[in-house]
């Protein structure tokens, strides 16, 4: 089974790195973007299987990134998981309406994030090796 690639879009380098090591541990490949414009550019270049997107980004927020992705004929098919510290009451519905597959509030529960990722990727089984714990830390 081909390794799935996940684009992590967050302007905080520590959060990007934290997600990267957790996703790598769970059998995923990763690539990164730090703002809305580079998100679309990186999605074109890397063709990820799923995008984890923060909303509070410089140079246009996460909604701008969703709009850019949804305008593209193939990128619009990539599932987007929004992970944001913004108030969910004000942003969740808007994000889902804009085309996000899921909305998770920071701090994100890692088990929940992995479950949402697997669902978005259509994976019924964990992406980890047999016998290994799926969620750590």
């Amino acid at each position, binding site marked *: 089974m081909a390794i799935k690639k996940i684009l992590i879009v967050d302007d905080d380098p520590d959060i990007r790195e934290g997600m990267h090591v957790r996703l790598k541990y769970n059998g995923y490949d990763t690539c990164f973007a730090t703002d809305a414009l580079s998100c679309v550019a990186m999605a074109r270049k890397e063709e990820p299987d799923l995008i984890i997107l923060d909303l509070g980004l410089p140079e246009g927020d996460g909604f701008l990134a969703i709009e850019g992705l949804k305008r593209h004929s193939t990128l619009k098919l990539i599932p987007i998981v929004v992970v944001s*510290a913004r108030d969910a009451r004000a942003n969740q519905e808007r994000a889902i309406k804009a085309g996000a597959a899921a909305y998770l509030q920071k701090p994100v529960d890692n088990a929940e994030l992995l479950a949402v990722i697997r669902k978005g990727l259509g994976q019924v089984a964990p992406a980890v090796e047999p*016998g*290994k714990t799926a969620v750590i830390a």
Partner: protein
Amino acid sequence: MDNFDKQARLQEQLAEIRESFLRRTQGELPLLGELLGRIEAGDSTGLAQLQIFAHRMRGSGATFDFAAISESAGQVENLLELLVGTSAASVDGPHDLRCLVECGRRLVLEIGAATAHGPTLG
């Protein structure tokens, strides 16, 4: 590398990232102090920069288990949303700005406390 080693390596990497977060945040304290000083003096040009900082601290503080930092940053961000998104006429200027600066000072204290009690900073 077996599963135990992989898990140990993961925990080690996450501890390094948490330490990196604290170190970087500690380095930003002077800027935060300067922004609060400017706002206290009536200069509103630093509000947008403070909003970006507070938003980042709210998310990353919670992500790295610094709940007090996240909570204080959330209060700053919420106040800023009111201030930045509201016309000047409907803002209780001195009172709201004083609350903002107080919340900001609390955030500085929380960062200082986390730095003192968190991982050793090299």
